[in-house]
């Protein structure tokens, strides 16, 4: 398949770009941060995204979705990465939506996916327990339909109506549905360095409402869903990295020292040119991987790890070089470039950093 966007995907990308620039630019994230917004995202912006069908973009029409594919969703992620827009897109649509859509029964899809498409309820997936990404570990237990344990780094946990929780039972790892507002559920919100939110969620004999797949299916469900989410997150990271880079190149042309633009200094030119090349590789991985989701490719795990590893590395490189090339002004809170550095570090560790994925890629290839 040609590694270019179709006309429809291109159009979606343009409207996403216009929407985020107009409604949720970086300054909007700053405002949410400064006013200590209780939700951590702009409800009005999210409602409009739902109106446009973006919350249901990848889901089947019979449940209220548009069935437009992940390559399309990736373009929305990409554009939202450029503006660093905070929204429940990742937690509710990409993570929870994918888990249910890929592994839920048709009744479950009717019940949950249609709510996601209509923006009626927000979801969060709770699968981390350790301090670094370890999606297969669950000391959280399910006994007699009661779930107990503690989860870390639950993205958007503080606004979720429903949790999908990984937990162990005698049959192994499973994915369970728990009411976020129900008895025995305690949510502690943490504002992260990127001004977005993740929670520590403690379950104390919380009632299990439902289960996705069978009790032992958890690993399969999480592996595939996280791979899809890793690719979508990489698309967002690509947007952020490209935006940080183009701002940096613009600054190199604008800032004068020694009577010339700093962009005329070869030491900076070569570093910028090198970043350009690395970003080109990231673009190719992201589009290849997004298309692989839509084509149901059997090497999705390979592609997801390749993409998240490489994009993570280059996001780190570009965000660091951006601050260095801006000089002192890059260290000030007034300048927006610092927001990109902060988001880069959070997205890097979300769903596995490059250490994790380089290792995983080697394991997938049997070495």
């Amino acid at each position: 398949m040609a590694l270019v966007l179709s006309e429809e995907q291109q159009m979606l990308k343009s409207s996403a770009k216009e929407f985020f620039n107009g409604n949720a630019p970086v300054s909007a994230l700053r405002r949410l941060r400064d006013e200590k917004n209780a939700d951590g995202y702009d409800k009005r912006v999210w409602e409009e995204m739902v109106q446009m069908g973006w919350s249901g973009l990848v889901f089947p029409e019979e449940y209220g979705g548009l069935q437009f594919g992940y390559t399309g969703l990736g373009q929305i992620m990409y554009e939202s990465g450029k503006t660093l827009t905070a929204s429940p897109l990742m937690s509710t649509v990409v993570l929870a939506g994918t888990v249910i859509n890929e592994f839920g029964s048709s009744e479950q899809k009717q019940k949950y996916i249609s709510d996601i498409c209509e923006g009626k309820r927000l979801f969060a997936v709770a699968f981390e327990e350790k301090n670094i990404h370890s999606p297969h570990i669950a000391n959280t237990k399910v006994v007699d339909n009661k779930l107990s344990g503690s989860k870390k780094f639950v993205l958007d946990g503080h606004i979720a109506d429903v949790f999908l929780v990984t937990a162990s039972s005698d049959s192994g790892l499973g994915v369970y549905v728990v009411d976020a507002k129900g008895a025995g559920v305690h949510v502690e919100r943490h504002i992260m360095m990127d001004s977005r939110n993740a929670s520590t969620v403690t379950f104390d004999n919380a009632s299990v409402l439902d289960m996705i797949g069978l009790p032992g299916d958890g690993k399969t469900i999480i592996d595939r869903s996280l791979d899809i989410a890793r690719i979508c997150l990489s698309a967002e990271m690509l947007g952020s990295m490209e935006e940080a880079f183009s701002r940096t190149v613009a600054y190199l042309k604008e800032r004068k020292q020694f009577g010339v633009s700093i962009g005329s200094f070869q030491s900076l030119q070569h570093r910028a040119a090198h970043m350009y090349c690395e970003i080109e590789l990231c673009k190719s991985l992201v589009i290849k991987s997004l298309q692989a989701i839509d084509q149901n490719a059997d090497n999705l795990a390979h592609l997801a790890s390749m993409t998240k590893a490489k994009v993570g590395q280059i996001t780190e490189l570009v965000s660091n070089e951006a601050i260095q090339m801006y000089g002192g002004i890059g260290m000030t809170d007034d300048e927006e470039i610092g927001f990109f550095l902060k988001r880069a570090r959070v997205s890097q560790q979300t769903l596995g950093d490059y250490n994790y994925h380089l290792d995983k890629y080697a394991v997938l290839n049997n070495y």
Partner: protein
Amino acid sequence: MSTATQVNIDAFRSETREWLEANCPQSMRSPVKTFKDYFWGGRNPTFHSEDQKLWFERMRDKGWTVPRWNKEYGGAGLSKSEYKVLKEEMAKIGARSPLFSFGIHMLGPALLGFGSEEQKLQYLPEIARGEMWWCQGYSEPGAGSDLAGLQTSAEDKGDHYLVNGQKVWTSYADYADKIFCLVRTDKNAPKHTGISFLLIDMKSEGVSTRPIKLISGSSPFCETFFDNVKVPKENLVGVENEGWNIAKYLLTHERSMIGNVAKMDKTLDEYAIESIGIEDSVLADPVNRIKTAQWLIDEAAFNFTLERALDEAKAGSPPGAKSSFFKYYGTEMNKRRYELMMSTGGFDNLVWGEEYEDGKTARDFCRTKANSIEGGTSEVQLNIISKHILGLPKK
């Protein structure tokens, strides 16, 4: 793509597959490794095996040494999509290039773009048929990265030019039949505007070569000397004093060729596993394990990017200065690959021996160091990307 076109392409694919299956000898279906695996053509061609000769002749007769060129120039006149199919089908069975030639990749495009019709009809078919071995005479001792500073002069003597000067780094000048050269035809003009593109027969009186031995121990390069060499006027390609445009155009071609990271018969992880071994189901050397994974990811990403560039070109966006990106990244990656092979390969790879084959990896490793020098250094490519892609200012 219209369905009719798609049907044609599908038919072309199956014909091509069948033809290759029937005509490509088994021994021509593995990556080129040694000097003997290359066929360069020339006035006195040397075939290193019967299969090599057979494969070359069959491909030549199909016009598939230069599949995109028109039939009257010795090609097959394939469309872009057909050419893509041919390349894919050849890659699928690991078929080698039947003919290695600077004529195809460097002089050919120059003639197609800038030559007169007589020149095209005279030179292109013999390139396509592998009857002429061309070498490239650009670099001089004083003109490397600053190529436009070249001094080899061609003086107008009425019916001919009189050429004097020295070229260096001329690959295979000691085997080649002819050389395409950049020469200075106007000493007083600014350096980029007094250069012309001239074709010279290596048999001409006053041309001599001296091989240069490289750190790899092989010497495919020469210094080439021109001492009062008479060159007919009709050997000028394009307009006098406008040769720099041709040179720039050609360097773009050359770069995209060097930038391709060659396939090898073992992938880097297979290589590492064979040499270091697996312990507790992972490669026994944890640092090389991660470096290997990293390199393989970069390789795949780079290949996707080549693929994407082709797809984008098809969709109408021009590659432009991108060839500098491919040249820079591809050559640096090839160096990294050999650095890793030296590291994972251990003591065995340190052997040098008498013949090139005795110490092949060590020698190839040394040779890769030139990848980021030849065809314009990495630093020069980064300069081009900065200026022409990023639009960063000159001082």
